[in-house]
């Protein structure tokens, strides 16, 4: 079963063909972005010489620089916030066995089934009344709130399986609870922290619905919202549009190809609970 047979070879060739087909849309993305704007060739034909003019134009016309910086700020703050807040919250949830602790845990887990659309309008009105509409702060707060349930679920279930010995040792050495958690427990959680960071970074970076609502009408945009506006403006100028698309997905794709193993493991690992 483990030998490389002729059948394996056939299978391998077939699978490589499927893999190439999977990459066609990504190839089209790159190929079209390098076409001159008046090109009449199809998505899969190469144009010579390739034109890089689209990228400069897209960068300028789409205000993509600002949007990328905003996306970056939102992603970093949201992910940092989720990690710290969820890890701290999970400590009592995992270590205290009282009834209220279990009920609080279920309160968080229940959030996994509630779509954000349910609270959409009331929260929008509250944010408006607080003057937070159009700010990155509103977005960061939103992201932290909606990502908390899953992150708390991961941290708590992991921590419940963790032995108490290290904490006891820290206590004997005279550490208070904050010190124990920050310098003993939290470092032991790094596998979960990795998963939480990966899943949340990808979903926050790609998020479209929330920023579309909370930033509309303000000068602020994030990468997906900037792209939405940009495409609305330059519809059918595909080479220009595709250059813009590449600029906004480049950060996440580069990260993916550098950290592929960790990212794939993160996605699969989060699921095993």
């Amino acid at each position, binding site marked *: *079963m483990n030998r*490389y047979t002729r059948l*394996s070879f056939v299978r*391998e060739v077939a699978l490589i063909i*499927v*893999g190439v087909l*999977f990459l066609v*849309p990504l190839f*089209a993305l790159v190929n079209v972005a390098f076409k001159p704007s008046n090109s009449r060739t199809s*998505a899969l034909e190469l144009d010579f010489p390739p034109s890089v003019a689209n990228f400069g134009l897209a960068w300028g016309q789409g205000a993509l620089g600002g949007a990328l910086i905003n996306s970056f700020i939102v992603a970093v703050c949201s992910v940092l916030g989720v990690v710290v807040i969820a890890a*701290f*919250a999970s400590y*009592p*949830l995992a*270590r205290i*066995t009282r009834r209220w602790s279990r009920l609080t845990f279920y309160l*968080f887990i229940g959030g996994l*089934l509630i*779509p954000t*659309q*349910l*609270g*959409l*309008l009331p*929260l*929008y*009105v*509250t944010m408006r009344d607080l003057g937070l509409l159009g700010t990155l702060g509103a977005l960061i*707060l939103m992201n*932290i*709130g*909606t990502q908390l*349930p*899953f992150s708390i679920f991961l941290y708590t*279930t992991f921590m419940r399986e963790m032995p*108490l010995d290290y*904490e006891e040792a820290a206590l004997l050495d005279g550490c208070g*609870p904050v010190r124990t*958690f920050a310098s003993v427990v939290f470092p032991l959680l790094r596998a979960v922290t990795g998963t939480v960071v990966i*899943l949340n970074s*990808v*979903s926050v970076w*790609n998020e*479209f*619905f929330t920023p*579309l609502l909370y930033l509309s009408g303000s000068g602020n945009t994030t990468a*997906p919202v900037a792209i*939405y506006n940009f*495409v609305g403006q330059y519809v059918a100028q595909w080479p220009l549009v595709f250059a813009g*698309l590449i600029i*906004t*997905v480049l950060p*996440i*794709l580069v990260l993916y190809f550098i950290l592929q193993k960790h990212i*794939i493991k993160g*996605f*699969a690992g*989060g*699921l095993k*609970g």
Partner: protein
Amino acid sequence: MTLSATVSGLNSVPAAVAAQEEAARLKPPAPARKRVSRSGIRAPWWFLVPALGIYLFIVVWPSITGAIYSFTDWNGLASDWSFVGFENFAEVFSDRRAVAALVNTVVLAAVVMVVQNVIGLGLALAVNNTIKSRSILKVVFFAPVVLTPLVAGYIWSYLLAPEGGINSVLSSVGLSDLAHDWLGDPNTALFAICGEIIWQFSGYSMVIFLAGLQAVPEEVLEAATIDGAGVWRRFFSVILPLLNGAIVINLMLSLIGGLKQFDQVMAMTGGGPGTATETISTTIYKSAFSTGEYPVSIALAVVMTILIAVLASVQFRLTSRKAD
């Protein structure tokens, strides 16, 4: 898992529930474990305060008020409102756009759930093998998952356009009769969107199935082979039952992701032509933020929540029972 699978985005949420319920089902209730140690470890309750505060403010409170407002004539602006019973729901079910959105969303979620998981399982079985290029193929199949769904939607709307890549490939192989305005025809637009989502997230299903396949011991498969089980028999009687956990999680993820679908539709059709690809999420968005029909929007969100809860639990019941 995620994501906001995106899910919209990569929605990791439903998987967690599935994983947890699955774990609860498989394990006997854990004996009360001593989490408070003899030596008196104290986990301070106030560690919970920031999380609870933000969660109540962002999720719990708005959701409760949203559910209550769905029985009122609240219009988003005026501070006074009164109860109107089920009037808003009656309006939702008599609104052609909203009904079309409900039907489209269920069709889309069902098609994506089935096809994405069949392809994902096929890829997982194929990659989980002796072939030499398996690690690079895994990276290739998973790559669309991290791509921004909105961007993926735009790429596909270009490929599916009347003069786009798919039609030009069809004509170049002599199948120009099949060439089509995929997104402009109300009969194909919804399925074209399903195709995009399936392309994007099959790699996600694959990764989860691969994690499940790790749990299928090689010896069991060898034993089955010695007992005379063929390829299909091994698949249906040995591999599939052992993959039950991964199947439950995968179906749950793709179902809930499909029911929340927003990004790709906005990129590819904006809900058109007509109402052919309108989904619940796009209708909630439009009725609140472009046509100002707040009651419809908010009642539809309640219907969506119920739909997710009901379909997810039906799916969970059906798939988990198979293992018994």
